């Protein structure tokens, strides 16, 4: 699905080679500041590497239309963003951005239930708590019919119980549809329980210094 060769981005990323197969759940694991969010943004076309090649389905990312790429490879950023408006507006936002068909209120309500987010669709989304906003942003991404889901610490603000509920639901659906997930997490349990493969940042990064001689 993704292939990286000799990627360099500022002095943040230096990756010789990395290959990610389709239809799997990957967990990105690494200490704070190691460049996990930066790497996801490169996959999503939000950042462009200074050097090297990144391919998505055999094609160089720089040669793809960035907007078309992002419709297939959607990303949930590290800080949950809530748009002005109702819960419904927020859930539909992704579909509206990418021009997909909207879903019904019923589908949205049942999604909220699965995410343990007991809120009305007409409620003002900006008044939700931090963890609720995170689940709302999560739900917005789940409604999108993408190929790859890049999730940057999607459950960081949730308690363990809620986290398990959300992750169970998410991975169950993803597996059913054979989608690819690359997820950043700080939790060992999450990565061991849900991922097919754990990617350790310090293993894929070329040690600093080697290239500066």
């Amino acid at each position: 699905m993704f292939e990286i060769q000799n990627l360099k981005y500022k002095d943040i990323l230096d990756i010789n080679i990395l290959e990610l197969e389709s239809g799997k759940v990957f967990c990105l694991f690494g200490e704070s500041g190691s460049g996990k969010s930066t790497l996801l943004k490169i996959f999503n076309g939000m950042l462009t590497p200074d050097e090297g090649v990144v391919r998505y389905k055999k094609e160089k990312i720089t040669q793809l239309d960035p907007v078309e790429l992002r419709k297939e490879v959607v990303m949930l950023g590290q800080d949950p963003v809530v748009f002005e408006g109702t819960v419904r507006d927020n859930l539909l936002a992704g579909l509206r951005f990418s021009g997909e068909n909207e879903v019904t209120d019923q589908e949205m309500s049942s999604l909220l239930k699965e995410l343990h987010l007991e809120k009305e669709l007409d409620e003002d989304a900006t008044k939700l708590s931090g963890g609720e906003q995170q689940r709302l942003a999560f739900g917005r991404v789940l409604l999108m019919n993408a190929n790859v889901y890049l999730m940057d610490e999607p459950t960081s603000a949730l308690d363990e119980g809620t986290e398990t509920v959300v992750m169970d639901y998410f991975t169950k659906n993803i597996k059913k549809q054979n989608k690819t997930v690359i997820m950043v997490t700080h939790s060992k349990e999450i990565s061991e329980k849900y991922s097919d493969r754990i990617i350790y940042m310090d293993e894929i990064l070329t040690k600093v210094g080697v290239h500066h001689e």
Partner: protein
Amino acid sequence: MNEMLEITIWQLVSAYIFIVILLAIVRWRKIPREKEIVIATLRMTIQLVLVGYLLMFIFENEKMIYSLIVLTIMETFAVYNIFKRTKQKLSKDLKKIIALSMVSGTLFAFIYFDFVVVQFSPWYDPRYFIPIAGMLIGNSMTGITLGVSALVEGFTSRRKEVEAALMLGATPNKASQGIVNHAFDSAILPTINSMVGMGIVFLPGMMTGVILSGAGPLDAIKYQIAIMLGITGSVSLSVILFLYLGYKTFFNKYAQLKL
């Protein structure tokens, strides 16, 4: 038609009493603004006297080239004034767009006004050409200034929102829709408000001038309606042009938000 009342030089001097009163008040209240007030008064006087002589010269030598030179100066001044009045740092590209939309928006509205609505004759008749161009340019300048501030401010404060939208496959256009609409709103609001208050809250300069020069109020009002519509057209055109081209300067060719 009755002639305009002459003001003698001594009557004019007596009007400066208002400034003297103002100075007395600020001194009494210990507001440190005396210098600014004096400078502003002097500037206003000198600028108007100079402009008076300049206009006298231009009106007496009715030549196309003079009208066009004045128009160029007004456009240039307006563009620089927008740069100066905007607090935020502006990128080179954005400055180009400001100049482009300011000039083409006002010119388009003005040409329509000149050749279709009022039909000055000759088309460069400085008596109409200069004050009306000035009004369109001045109002568009204010509109664009407000639009620029709102746009830059919007991209700064709502950066995360724009990025979140892009990450989900929004085009730059869609991702900045909220910011652009808000900027349009704040740029156009003063013009709309002044239409609402027109004639009740204030008699605008144009009409005051026409009435003072001895025309009947109904003629003055016809002019005022036309000019108000012209101003609205000029402001909306230049602001729309600016916003439509301007938001693009915040994105690079990979549809990423520039820093």
